């Protein structure tokens, strides 16, 4: 944790610097008769962020924040595994949206999570994984008139049938 605290502060300081640099594309000073320029608001606030990172580093050095005193690792092996499996699952889910449509991706993600991570039986996970996207389809497309990504063209026949049902 102790190492992580200072690394995080360092990364955030870099982010602040990047934001400050990016803000300078617009005037960051006080324009006479007009007030602050377009870049002033984000520039100076990013500046405060940078100062805060400095203060966090100072507290780390003095060891006043809990994280800077802790010798525990940020995540143990089980923790990393958990975060990678769940976080990776979400990334894969979002990645699949443009391939097999939002609803297909929902079904795949639910199945993955419940069957593989949750170790639920097939007869629990499969029906839920299929019913949820269908319900959401009728909710979003039918009731709310919000169209979700349909993925690659090969999903068209399925959706054309479904649209036939709701309209």
């Amino acid at each position, binding site marked *: 944790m102790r190492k992580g605290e200072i690394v995080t502060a360092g990364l955030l300081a870099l982010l602040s610097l990047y934001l400050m640099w990016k803000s300078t594309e617009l005037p960051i000073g006080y324009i006479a008769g007009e*007030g602050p320029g377009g870049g002033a*608001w*984000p520039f100076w606030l990013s500046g405060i962020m940078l100062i805060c990172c400095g203060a*966090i580093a100072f507290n780390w050095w003095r060891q006043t924040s809990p994280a800077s005193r802790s010798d525990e690792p940020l995540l143990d092996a089980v923790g990393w595994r958990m975060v990678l499996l769940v976080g990776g699952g*979400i990334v894969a889910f979002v990645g699949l949206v443009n391939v097999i449509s939002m609803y297909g991706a929902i079904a795949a993600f639910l199945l993955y999570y419940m069957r593989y991570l949750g170790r639920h039986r097939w007869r629990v996970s499969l029906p839920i994984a299929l019913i949820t996207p269908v319900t959401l389809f009728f909710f979003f497309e039918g009731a709310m008139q919000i169209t979700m990504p349909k993925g690659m063209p090969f999903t068209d026949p399925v959706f054309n049938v479904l649209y036939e049902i709701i309209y």
Partner: protein
Amino acid sequence: MEVLGLLADGMFVAVQPLNLFLILVGVALGLFIGAMPGLGSVNGVAILLPVTFLVPPGSAIIFLAALYYGAMYGGAISSVTLGIPGASTAVATTFDGRPLAMQGRASLALVTAALASFVGGTVANILFTLFAPLLASVALSFGPPEIFALMLLAFATFVGLGGDDIPKTIFSICLGLVLGSIGFDAISGAPRLVLFDHTGFLQGIGFLVLAIGVYGIGEMLWTIEQTRGEVTATTPKITAKGVAADTKDAVRRGWKGTTIGSFLGFFVGVLPAAGATPGSLMAYGVTKMVSRKPQDFGKGHPGGVAAPEAANNSASTGAMLPMLTLGIPGSPTTAILLGGMVIWGLVPGPRLFVEETEFVWGLIGSFYVSNVAAVLINLAFIPLFIWMLRMPFTILAPMIFVLSIAGGYAATRDMFDVWLMVIFGLGAFFLRKFDYPLAPAVLAIVLGPIAEPTLRQSLLLSSGDPSIFFTRPIAGPITVIALILIFLPAFKLLRKRRSLA
């Protein structure tokens, strides 16, 4: 007295069989739309506007009012049960609603939210009925300097909301403000902070993208990691006795917050541009300040649920006032309703209130009826939401992720935003590990885009002279109070240090 007669007519119209049916459908539909992260009353009203041509205009208005109320109540449900604020107005509700749910007292939080919302809505309706034209002129006297002063006041109330680590809290506030300034500079019209020159950033980062990322993904990951995927909080079954006890508890510990929220929320909500979010936030802050046990807030105090819920309901009703009296939308939802009025052949503007009395009072009358229907239906659905919480966590968790991603997409219909949400979620997970409070960032991204343009508009008005915030009769006192509140904690800290030394 004429007003009361008109109002009675309005309510009478609302309880006709067809209309009563529409109210029930509208409230129930609104409840689910509001409870869905990413969707809110604005979606519901927008899709149902064309549908309203199938029924007489009077009934159409009632239907929309019912939906509006239902969605307002629904916002609290996702804050409590899923831990994701479905709308910016419900962020403050998560502060105490979520801890209550984690302690297995979700029903207490939901009952408190429902009752507080009801009181907030009722107080707002009464104030509305009595003082509408007067309040309209107050709303007009709020120009950019006044709105900015009000935002300053809202910021002042959340200085005390962050964690114990001051640099991390300030970092979080500033991060939210900077993220909120991405997109276009409202004053010069120039693109600003288009990160990595990716055109996706041109549209800015919306509140929902950050909120769903932080709460729906980051916080969820954190919970899963902390509990090793098995949340142990047991949510007891709903019993009549339990509900009665919850109701008693809600009333006993939530009345103060409800009262503060109802009035504060209404006055802030009446001001166009300000809206319900600063209202609910200020109500939370003030309730915590006047509470005898401020240290209980943030750990599951019913007062912390009651205040923002009363305030956001009250403010959302208040937001109807500028629309009806001036023809100015106070929120995106009222903007769409305003469009509906044009389609129905009404002319929005200052004369609407005088000339279309039947329409105006019919709408207000249906607010009263919808509010009653909403609290009853909401209470009736609480067992269903509690039942959802009783699902095994390995089913509930993926469902929350799915609702977050699908809801996040529905809000802007842009995959870029969904990717940003995932990135924010993963980032938020690690920041959470290092005790960075993220609620301030989520609120700042809402308040920043109101605060910055009003600040710069004011300075344009005064030719760059900042004294404009102190010399105007309304802005002056608000600015002074806000500055005192902001510097009070620093001053206290300094005195404490000195007395220690």
